[in-house]
């Protein structure tokens, strides 16, 4: 399959679009409430009322539709094409789940309704909890955390609570140097000091490294499995035993669970508590940066510490707030319920065999790309990987072409770039995660684009430094953005001189 280069334009024409504020025309509006059917209020002291109303734009519904239609067309989503953003699992987002989440019996429920009127919603939640427990090999699940990092925070608080309940407060936590930045940030938020665990030469953690760092004040190990270089942590079973022997617990970052469903269960290997990113493995849309959901699964012994409330099982489901050992709530209500419905939908539609097949194909696709891309790019760890593979710019750097140039050039070929410069342990990384929902021809087209970029790197490196050429905007000045932050719109004053926002 030969793919023409992209041309600018998402709708035949790509129109410039002003700010919503610049569309504002005094007196224009888009929404009206019903006519007031009670007397107007007469009770408020005028001194309490807002002196200067918020300066919102005055626009019509057609204005808003045009504005957001045009803006949306400046975005690249999975719907538009291959999105191999490593560690983010950009798989196809089914639309039937959008429809089900919007049913009035789900989307129209108030979280404070009598429990008798929300039985179906609670049923969705317990079925999802059970499915996540089965897939992770753990026993109990909270659906409350709103995102992966929120799940990390929740899970580490559970670790902390379990230690404190034994009168064994511990202050340090081991984290591999390849970990995502949220891991150390979450550990700090939970009051832990972090200790870096180096990776072995072949990209996986070695039991000796963990053994040498275990100490009585180490609460545990926080490990991403499969790890952030796309490899199965082959010694994890032994490593978990080392941590357990030292009185610690093992936290699993489930960001990469898409490689493991029906293949191997983290709980079986020795992980005690882990979060799962529903917006990755369970196909709920990423939404340009959320909403996601980060449920946390734990061993039975840790279940008492889960955030409250928990759902009480039975013919009639109930909400149990009486959880004396709970770490407490981590957010309002029960979690990102709309995201949970979408994940439940995915699990029910795929079924056990479908989820297992999805993981197998995600891994096969990644290995196929590893084999094909290895011809033109350096593969960081050239052996069978899991769901993603890391390339570097080592063969392109002699021509003065770096990872960032390769990423930007890919846009001109119609692709979203891989994750770049992560993980930090592989300098100049390009992390490619195809997921199972990409077809062979789509991947072949990506390989062809990567090869074309590699050729360009040796033949005409200067052209890559200027890429992308065909996107709605070309390279943006991030230094300027950080040096003089311009973080909001300021309305021009009537006289034409700038005025403050408040």
């Amino acid at each position, binding site marked *: 399959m030969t793919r023409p280069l992209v041309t600018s334009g998402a709708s035949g024409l790509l129109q410039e679009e002003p700010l919503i504020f610049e569309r504002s025309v005094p007196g224009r509006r888009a929404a009206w409430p019903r006519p007031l059917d009670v007397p107007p209020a007469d009770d408020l002291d005028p001194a309490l009322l*807002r002196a200067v109303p918020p300066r919102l734009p005055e626009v019509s519904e057609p204005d808003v539709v045009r504005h*957001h239609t045009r803006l949306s067309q400046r975005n690249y989503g999975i719907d538009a094409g291959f999105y191999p953003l490593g560690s983010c699992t950009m798989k196809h987002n089914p639309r039937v789940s959008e429809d089900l989440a919007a049913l009035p019996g789900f989307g129209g429920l108030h979280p404070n309704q009598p429990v008798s009127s929300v039985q179906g919603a609670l049923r969705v939640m317990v079925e999802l909890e059970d499915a996540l427990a089965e897939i992770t090999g753990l026993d109990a699940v909270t659906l409350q955390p709103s995102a992966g990092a929120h799940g990390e925070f929740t899970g580490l608080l559970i670790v902390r609570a379990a230690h404190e309940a034994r009168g064994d407060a511990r202050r340090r936590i081991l984290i591999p140097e390849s970990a995502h930045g949220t891991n150390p940030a979450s550990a700090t938020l939970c009051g832990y000091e972090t200790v870096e665990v180096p990776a072995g030469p072949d990209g996986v953690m070695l039991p000796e490294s963990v053994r040498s760092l275990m100490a009585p004040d180490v609460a545990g190990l926080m490990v991403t499995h499969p790890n952030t270089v796309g490899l199965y942590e082959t010694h994890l079973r032994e490593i978990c035993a080392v941590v357990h022997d030292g009185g610690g617990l093992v936290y699993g970052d489930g960001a990469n669970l898409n490689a493991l469903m029906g293949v191997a269960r983290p709980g079986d290997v020795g992980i005690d508590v882990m979060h799962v990113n529903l917006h990755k493995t369970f196909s709920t849309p990423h939404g*340009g940066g959320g909403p996601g959901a980060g449920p946390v699964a734990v061993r039975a012994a840790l279940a008492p510490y889960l955030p409250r409330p928990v759902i009480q099982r039975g013919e009639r489901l109930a909400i149990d707030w009486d959880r004396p050992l709970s770490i407490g709530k981590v957010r309002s209500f029960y979690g990102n319920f709309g995201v949970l419905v979408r994940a439940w939908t995915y699990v*029910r539609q795929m079924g056990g065999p479908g989820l297992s097949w999805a993981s197998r194909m995600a891994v096969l696709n990644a290995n196929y790309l590893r084999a094909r891309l290895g011809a033109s790019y350096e593969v960081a760890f050239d052996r069978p990987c899991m769901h993603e593979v890391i390339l570097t710019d080592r063969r392109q750097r002699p021509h003065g072409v770096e990872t960032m140039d390769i990423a930007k050039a890919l846009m001109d070929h119609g692709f979203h770039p891989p994750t770049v410069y992560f993980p930090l342990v592989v300098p100049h990384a390009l992390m490619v995660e195809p997921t199972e929902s990409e077809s062979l021809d789509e991947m072949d087209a990506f390989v062809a684009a990567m090869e074309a970029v590699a050729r360009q790197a040796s033949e005409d490196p200067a052209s890559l430094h200027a890429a992308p050429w065909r996107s709605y905007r070309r390279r943006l000045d991030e230094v300027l953005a950080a040096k003089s932050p311009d973080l909001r719109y300021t309305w021009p004053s009537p006289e034409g001189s700038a005025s403050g926002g408040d």
Partner: protein
Amino acid sequence: MEGIPYVPATPDEVQRMLDVLGFSTVDALFDAIVPAGDRLRQPLGLPAGLVEADLVEAGTALAAQCTPVTAAASFLGAGAYRHHVPAVIRHLVSRGEYLTAYTPYQPEISQGTLQAIWEYQSLVCDLFAMDVANASVYDGASALAEAMLMSWRIGKGKRPRVILAGAIHPDALEVCCTYGHAGIVRIEAVPPGPDGRVDLEALRRSVGPDTACVAVQSPNFVGLIEDLPEIAAIAHEAGALQVVSVPDPHACALFEAPGASGADIVVGEGQPLGLPISFGGPYVGLFATRNAYVRQMPGRLVGRTRDVEGRQGFVLTLATREQHIRREKATSNICTNQGLCALQVAMYLALQGPEGLREVAEQCHAKALYLKRAVDAIPGFRVPYKGPFFHEFLVETPCRAADLVEDLAEEGIFAGVPLSRWYPARTHEMLVCATETSRREEMDRLVARLAAVQGGAR
């Protein structure tokens, strides 16, 4: 594999890929990756998949076991509020370009999300009368907890104490305590006074040079408007910040904005601004502050800049605060936030405009006032607090409020939220809320039923 959706590889393609890799079967590939002892040897204990038609039927059947607020006369609030959501919002945020993109790490092909979020930041600033807003946090409760931690950072550790003053939503209070578990922040609650509002004298006594911030919710948990200028004065006199939490930002279209009342950090629950009520989530935490504190802010920020051709464009900026750069020294661990929900808020505020938003807010108050006066006049029922309020109020009931709510639910009336959910001893109190969606006829029906309950109270 036969019948598995969203996985396009055909058996022939699987074989071609395996051939490239030099493996005969998929299992053989996995044998080369996963140690034999770790492999799951039995199938996952999950039911087989459903075809779409059966899936829709199964989901619809479960949804049918629930009563949505649209099928009842609902007076529920306490942290989630029913407002009309313009239909166009769902259509716009369902556009695949918004829905199926991720965090805009590559700005050249993410200008849609980036410009929309920058506009969202601007709108939140206008609403709260603040200088700068972030790209969102998870919800109102976690936003308050993040504000508390941010105040602590601004105090550089010399101000370890955070004061949560007055009637703050107990769930938000609990979330703050969870976030404070690490022990670096000392949380102290100053209970409300007899009028249901912040006890200013008690607050004055509590605030000191070790105080990082005074956090207050307005309208508060029982619906009352707090004296924000006075609370700000008390906080500022001690060198502490004022943090204001807004449970329904429509209030800012009617009452004086927190930013004009001395607030240093303003957080809010964005759900009322165009999000489905959706059983408690996904919602969105609004988060705004003053320019001086922007580098201590949690979360993503979008900034305006130029591309190499000098054209306006937008990027994620000030990332040196964030976890992917600073790791354990980051201002927060937040990564994925509530991007699409923030877009919904931006669309809602634009669709309402200044007039629409004010009218919604005025109607909320007028209807709640109508209902409050009517309920207060029912013998046996009492509205204890007389202070200024927005759209929610506390009612003392002659019988157990939880029973009353259950009984009326059978008749299609969600009368209110019993306080016993949070305070087991407060059995005879409930929160009642009216918004612009409440019809006079529904309110009259509620009042008539409450009056009847009084006769035969159990």
